[in-house]
Structures are given as C-alpha cells and as structure tokens.
C-alpha cells in the first residue's frame, strides 16, 4: 500500500469510527504517561538509594540492569568491549574477573570511577599514582628522589615477580629482585611489601596471576617496569545523568558477580 493509500484508509477509519479512534489515542496517551511516571518513580528511587544497599531492592536492580547494559554498550564498550573483557594490549581492565584495580568492586566505588574517571582531566579524578618508567633518567617526575634501575636490576625484579607467582625459580636473581622491590626500586610503596597491590592508588596485585598489561610474559613485565604505565578512564560526570551512572555501575557490578551476571546475559 502506498503512503497516500494508507493515509486515505486511516482517514476513512477515523470518519467511520471517531469514538474508537479517540479512545485508542486516549489509551495510548494514558499508557505512555503511566509508563513515564513509573520510569520516573523507579529512577527517583534508584538515585535516592544508597548504592551499596541496592542488593536489597531487587525490583530496582531489575529495572536498572537492562538500562545499564544499554548505557555500557554506548559509553563503555568502545574501550572495555561489549563483553567487558577489556584489552590487555592497552591495559584496559577486564570488568568480569572480580579483580578490582580501584576499590573493592562496590557499586559506589564503580560509580565514582564512572563519574570522576581515572587520571582523567577532572578535578576529582583518581590519580594518586602511576607506574614509573625505570628506564628513564627521571622515572617518576613527581618524586625526583626515585632513581632509575639498570637493565639487570629490572630483569632481577622480573625474576622475583615470576617466582612469587610460582612461574619461575627462587634464585639469586629473584633474591636480588626482592631486595630491589623492597628497597631502592620503591615498588613496595604502591604494590605493597607482599606485592599484593593497593586498591587505594590503583596499584595492581602482582601475585594473583591476573595481568593488566599483556599476559604476564617476562618481556611484558620488563616493558612495564622499564617504560611505565598510566591507563586512563574518562570522567562522565556532566555528560551522563546521575541515574545513568548508577545504572551502569550496577550493571558493571553485576558483571563481576556470578549470580547476577546470568541475569544480564554475560557468559
């Protein structure tokens, strides 16, 4: 049917059954209004709630997850990927693995990262530290006292890190690496004396077999120590509404929670 024929048919129906048409239009308007009011009420409840206690409101979680999924696909997936598995070549973290660089994976913490970013051009962004480049004359300009390391020193630290993961032997080299790690290298300052990381500054756990950059091969670890790392996440405050930020935070939280990830369709 051509558009002209379709509109003529519609006009004929309107002339034949004007009351039915009015009732249909009124019903459509009423349904839309009710739907908008329901959505507004849910959104209001969602943003008013304590984000870390939303688990006790399954109705709000069920409302937020599909919307968070859509928001994630639009704003976060270009970097983290649609499956949120990240990209180890760029140091973009896997959001499904329960290994949190910043904080411990609470909804409020995820929300803060979405809003303020990591090393983003935002006054509230999370940027307490970055990985120094030990193969440079000044490895970490904010702390000029930190000295560079020699190539052999870096190889020793790599041996140490391989040994604590059980992927390399405990040797003289790893012992020297341990001393550098706990001493003049200053690695302990962010990563902790046990190399367990510090979620307060975004320093990764180096002993958990999860690698942010690459797959933990010795040459990749060497590159990280030699040339430094400083991943970023944009700050979405002002670009996304508070409700959108919370929906995405809930979705990301669900991705890393096995019981909830099934409900958001993540394998």
């Amino acid at each position: 049917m051509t558009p002209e024929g379709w509109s003529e048919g519609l006009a004929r129906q309107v002339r034949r059954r004007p009351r039915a048409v009015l009732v249909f239009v009124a019903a459509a308007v009423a349904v839309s209004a009710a739907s908008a009011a329901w959505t507004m009420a849910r959104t209001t409840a969602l943003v008013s709630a304590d984000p870390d206690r939303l688990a006790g409101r399954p109705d709000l979680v069920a409302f937020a997850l599909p919307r968070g999924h859509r928001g994630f696909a639009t704003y976060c997936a270009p970097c983290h990927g649609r499956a949120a598995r990240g990209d180890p070549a760029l140091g973009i973290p896997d959001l499904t693995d329960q290994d949190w660089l910043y904080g411990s994976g609470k909804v409020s913490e995820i929300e803060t990262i979405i809003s303020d970013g990591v090393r983003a051009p935002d006054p509230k962004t999370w940027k307490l530290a970055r990985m120094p480049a030990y193969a440079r004359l000044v490895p970490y300009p904010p702390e000029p006292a930190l000295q560079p390391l020699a190539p052999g020193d870096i190889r020793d630290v790599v041996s140490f890190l391989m040994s604590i993961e059980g992927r390399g032997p405990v040797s003289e080299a790893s012992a020297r690496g341990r001393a550098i790690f706990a001493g003049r290298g200053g690695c302990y300052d962010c990563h902790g004396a046990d190399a367990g990381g510090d979620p307060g500054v975004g320093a990764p756990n180096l002993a958990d077999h999860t690698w942010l950059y690459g797959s933990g091969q010795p040459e990749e670890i060497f590159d990280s120590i030699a040339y430094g790392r400083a991943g970023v996440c944009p700050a979405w405050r002002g670009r996304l509404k508070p409700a959108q930020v919370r929906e995405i935070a809930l979705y990301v939280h669900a991705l890393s929670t096995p019981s909830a990830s099934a409900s958001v369709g993540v394998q």
Partner: protein
Amino acid sequence: MSGTAPASARSPIWRNLGAISSGRSFVLAGGAAIIGLVLAGAGLFAARGTSSLVIPPEDVAIVNQQPIARTDLLAQLRALYGEDPAEITPQQRRKALNDMIREELLVQRAKELDVASVDPDVRAAMVAAVEQSVAADAMIRQPGQAELRAYYQAHQERYASEGTISVSNLAFGGAHAALRAVQSLRKGADLAQVLTQEHGREISSEGQAFYFASRIHLGDSLFEVARRLHAGEISEPLVQPDGVHVLVVRQNHPPVARPYAAAQDQVLNDFRNDEIARLEAKSAEFLRKRANILIAKDAR
C-alpha cells in the same frame, strides 16, 4: 444548557469529523492546553538551574539553585566517618551536609566578590578547570586501531627502546702509553695485564647500563664515542682534560623502535595528549577571536 444535554442529542455533529463542531474544538483545545501546562510545569520544576521547590532525587540539597549531589555527600561521609554508611549517625550526616552547604554558600559569595580577579590560586584553578573541560572532550573518544597505527608510524622515534651498553673506561698517563694499550687490547691481550704494563687504571667498568646512565658516568664526549662502537671494539686514544682515555665496549644495543603491539598503550596516551593540545589551542584561538582585547601601543 448544552453542557447537560444527553450525548445522543449532540452526537451527530460531535462525531462527524467532516463537520465543524465548536464544542469539540473547545474540548480538544482545552485538553491540549492542560497537557501542555502539565508538561511545562513538570519541566520547570524538574530542570536544573531553575528556581524550584522540588529537590531532584539525585541531589540532597539545593543552595540558591546550585545542587549538592547525593554521591558527593556519600563520598564526604565515607571520607570522614568510614566505609559503612550504616554506622554513620544522623548527627554526623547533618553535620557533613551543613558543612557542604556552608562551603557552597562561601563559593557563591566568592563569585559575587569576584575573588578570581585578585587571587592567583583561584585564577590558576579556574584556568586548570577550563583546560580540563577541553581535555575531557578528547578523552571520551576512543580512536580506532587504524588511527593509532598511523600515529605510531608517524611518530615511531618516540617509541624507541632505551639503548643499553656495557663499557670499561681506561685512563693512561700519556698518548703513547694509551696507543700501545689500544694495540695490545686489539690483539687480544688481557686487560689487567695491559693496565699493569702501561701504568693505566680502570676508571669505571659498568655492567649493562641504559644509555642515559652511561652518558652520566662517561660524560657526553666519551659516551658519544662509546655508543658508536660495537661489542668487542676498542676506541682510539681519547685526549681528555684528566688524561688519555681508552674505551672498551663489551656490549652495545642501540635503541630500536619497539613494535606497535608493545607500545600500544603509550601510543594511545600520546595520541590523546596531542588531541588535547590541539583542542586547547583551538579553544584559546576561539576565545581570543570572540574577545574584545585592547593592547596599549607600547605593549604591542
């Protein structure tokens, strides 16, 4: 009394959409007006920046139309009183909120007083904030692999590895002794023996070092010679203010371009930084273009 007339009495003209019905027109126009008013009212009371008696759900207070976000209050409470919001008392919550309201009021007063015109710290913070807002636009765009590869190709020198070298720096009392030492070493003589024979000394012998470290140890002129030598090569005697030097290079790996896969994260950071610099320049240009700037003749 048409308002009380039965439906059947008014239905022919009311129903006939081909005919003009003033009653129907009034009803439809009235309905549309009511819907419009409701929508406008909702928009007016819900919109940010408008005078309102309603606090949006995402905010915890509004101070002269300036919202204080719930997330900010929550972050403040966590910073002040610990991680578990359940342990925070209503008094602590009220105090934190009052402090935030007080801060907002002082900030608003500072705007009225035009503090930025006299306080260099405030000016610096404002400049930084505007620059950050410009940079944020560049941050949210994730460049494609083709773009990043093209950028890497165009700036490959930035992604060179740091060269490494292992070199011994020998010093001799005179040019003849140094020359004899060079000849002996090139024939494969033992280094310690040569030093004893020619009364030389080993000033430094470093294991593998990065180029920048070796440059510091040797000094610019000796390093420039060393970095051109291959592993196993021995320099000509080099006259320096403190004597005649000979360099023995045991290993030399000059800087090489790191492959794209290894340098990808740095390529992305540099790409973004360049984009930010470009946007900041454009922004400054735009602000200058629209500004009315008068410069005194003697300052031009």
